[in-house]
């Protein structure tokens, strides 16, 4: 079972590169940050979902 630390460490690890990827995609700082934030929130939501079955 994953602990709350795991997503924290994971996001800390990838957030810069995720931002960079988003920036390369949209060429805009604010939009890239928005995309990363959206992605983080979605990850948090789906990571909290109980496993099916």
């Amino acid at each position: 079972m994953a602990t709350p630390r795991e997503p924290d460490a994971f996001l800390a690890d990838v957030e810069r590169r995720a931002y960079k990827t988003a920036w390369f995609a949209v060429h805009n700082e604010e939009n890239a940050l928005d995309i990363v934030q959206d992605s983080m929130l979605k990850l948090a939501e789906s990571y909290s979902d109980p496993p099916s079955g």
Partner: protein
Amino acid sequence: MTRPADELPTLFQRILQNTIRDFYRRTKVRSTWTTLFSALGDGEDEDDQDKIDRLRATDAEKAKRPEEALEQRQMLDILENELAKLPARQREAFLMRYCEGLTAEAMGRLPGQRQNPLFTSHTGSGSGSESKRNTAITHETDRPTSPQEDLLAKAMVSALDQSAGALPSSITARLAQMREQALAHQKQWQSAIQLAGQSTHRAMGSLFSDSFGSATDWRRWAASAGILLLTGAFMFWQAQTQIEDLASENSALLSEALPPNALIDKGFKIWLFSGTPA
């Protein structure tokens, strides 16, 4: 309650890709993928060209030996040329593969291995353009990567990673803040799910099992059953009276004697005897 941690990179990569796609749909920037790497080549966008130049400068500065700087510059040149050849759709695929590269790296696989994540097949993007696949980046997993392709992959990853490592503190601070928010959101979400689960369980329990557990619960059960019964009885009685009312109205209409005026009316008499209306 949670998914296994090794799902995280794949999950996040998919989410990031979808969010970027959603962003394009929302803003309807159709040409974004086409201009995605155009700044690397023709420099039509001044701002982006500046950023690329800065990236190059950083590369050169960071390199300890001149030949290292030259090598990096050459790699970026190859990168530019290769990317310039790519159709828009494959540039998209390339970026998505960069995301996958990050995922693979996060899972302990590094680019440059035979299963180079930058060049593995990407399901979902590029489908339908198989016939047009004419560049280094578009072959499938099984084919071994050529040195040039490896170089390109490494250049891409190193260029992006270097710029990612050299992000301004304002950006990194905001990223950290976002992470905190997302984790707080996760906790809220998690407790909401737990709460919903518990309350549903409790509600079902109080209805079906706990009710029979103790005397007080039994009385409560009986009381609600009584109320239910009374409500049912009242509704039945109401329906019955309504039917009775309708029946009496109907019979009154049917059995009522013809009004005297009807008999006086000539037209009615004619109608009565002829069988047709006047």
